[in-house]
């Protein structure tokens, strides 16, 4: 791929202004924020179900305007620091998917499932601040959404390559775009000054063993992504299940017996999640 084409596409990706989200989620959050008795925890819980709103909130709180870039990786903390006023303006500035393609709903479900699975893994291996792992799980495919919005003409091309070659979505992205969503995630994380742990989770979830600073974060998101695919919850863009890096289990010190417990716990939670309808 020619370097200037790659640079031009990176520029278009980073020029993203508005990421659309599901009408129902936006409506629920707006309602909650307008109620005088709503608590930050309630709003944070709801926002944590939507990758676009979560990304916007984290981008805002980590912007240099507030004076602590790269520090906040929890939605709850972000809301405490931003206040409901700023949150209202975030809601106003978010548009909705008028016509929700089935794939986008599938990706939304996949992200939500990955958030839940990543949080469960982090809790099981007793990592501090499990919520931050859930946030990274939620946002791990953000690059796919941004690419779809900013380079819409290339999306059908990627899907065609996936279908024709029977390859993974990531490989097709690399062939068509010149880079995968993992790379887009890294750009966005830098551009939005997201904390380093979130950045590593987003940009190394396909190759967790290469993460340098926060290997646990990358491994947890990798595993979360793998698990939600195994349960066939949502649609990531791939029909099959990606390869599970054995190093990830080693780094997280997960034994086969733990793994079974995790699967049991997750299947219960995913059934509950499946009852949630936001479309």
């Amino acid at each position: 791929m020619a370097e200037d084409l790659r640079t031009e596409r990176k520029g278009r990706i980073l020029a993203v202004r508005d990421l659309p989200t599901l009408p129902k989620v936006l409506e629920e959050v707006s309602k909650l924020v307008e109620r005088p008795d709503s608590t930050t925890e309630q709003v944070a819980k709801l926002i944590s179900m939507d990758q676009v709103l979560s990304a916007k909130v984290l981008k805002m709180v980590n912007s240099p305007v507030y004076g602590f870039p790269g520090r906040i990786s929890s939605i709850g903390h972000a809301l405490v620091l931003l206040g409901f006023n700023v949150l209202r303006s975030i809601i106003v500035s978010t548009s909705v998917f008028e016509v929700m393609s089935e794939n986008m709903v599938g990706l939304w479900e996949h992200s939500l499932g990955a958030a839940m699975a990543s949080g469960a893994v982090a809790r099981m291996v007793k990592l501090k601040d499990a919520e931050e792992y859930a946030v990274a799980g939620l946002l791990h495919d953000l690059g796919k959404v941004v690419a779809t919005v900013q380079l819409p003409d290339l999306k059908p091309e990627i899907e065609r390559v996936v279908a024709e070659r029977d390859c993974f979505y990531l490989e097709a992205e690399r062939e068509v775009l010149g880079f995968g969503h993992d790379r887009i995630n890294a750009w966005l994380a830098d551009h939005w000054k997201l904390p380093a742990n979130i950045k590593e989770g987003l940009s190394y979830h396909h190759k967790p063993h290469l993460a340098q600073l926060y290997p646990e974060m990358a491994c947890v998101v990798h595993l979360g992504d793998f698990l939600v695919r195994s349960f066939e919850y949502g649609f990531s863009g791939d029909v099959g299940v990606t390869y599970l890096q054995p190093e990830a289990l080693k780094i997280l010190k997960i034994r086969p017996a733990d793994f079974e417990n995790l699967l049991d716990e997750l299947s219960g939670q995913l059934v509950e999640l499946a009852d949630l309808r936001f479309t």
Partner: protein
Amino acid sequence: MVSDALCAFTRTQKILVLSPDPTLARLFDAAFTPAEAEVTIQCQGRYAVETLFTDPPDMLVVDAALADMPGPTLVTMVKSENVYRQLPVALIMDEAALGPDIDWCAVEVDELLTRPLTSAMLRARVTLALARATRSLDANPLTKLPGNTSIIGRIQDLIDRRQDFALAYADLDYFKSFNDKYGFSRGDEVLMMTARIIVNTVRAVGGPTAFVGHVGGDDFVFILDIDRVEEACRTVVASFDGIVPHFYDADDRDRGFIQSVDREGNRRSFPLMAISIAVVFNRDGRLKHFGEASQTAMTLKKKAKENPKSCYVLDKRQG
């Protein structure tokens, strides 16, 4: 026209005008009543400098074409002295003289008045410049929150009106050792974070007396209705304790303390930062003066500081 004083100002504003232009006096007379502004007009810059330094006005208006020196030179003389940096200065010029070659960033003026002048425009521009100066004068440069003058004014005003209120003084424990170890820019991040937590909490808990000020450094003040202050304190403490670990490096955070140097120069370990809040109440016009409130708060704060964890202490004598 307002009869006694300009809206935002409680007393007559002193305005010094330096210009050889004889028509200016008439324009200022038409723009302001004597109760609003006391306007002195001088045509020589040289003589004005002494007055300016010994009895500074609330605002200085300088003609670019002074008889004895260029207006901007005089402005630079005044503004290079740090005590007068905040003095709002307006420059008068002919509109025709506005060229692209003027380096506006180098001229330290706060407002520009161009001829032809009208008294209505004069009134508007001068009042705006005065109001702007009052606002920016007292804001904390880091958090942009109101500073001491506004805080004292606010408290004294509530006392004078015999209104019930709760006054909370908050500061951070072990902030200095954090600053010493990580540097002042990381310290500033913590202050910004603290300011956001307090402002959002006070705004959410609300009430007619809700107000937040930044005394300076790690000292903050907030005012709330008496029945709401405890909820605010609880929320501030919980939010601060949840968020502050994220401002430490991962290894220090895991250890739960940092190694730094104390006031005597000895290396020792310090716990993670905590927030201490002391709350004073004014009920039934009990307080007569701002000083009483701050003194009681300081005594209470010592009590709050005895606890190394984040906490708040309420003034029981009035509770």
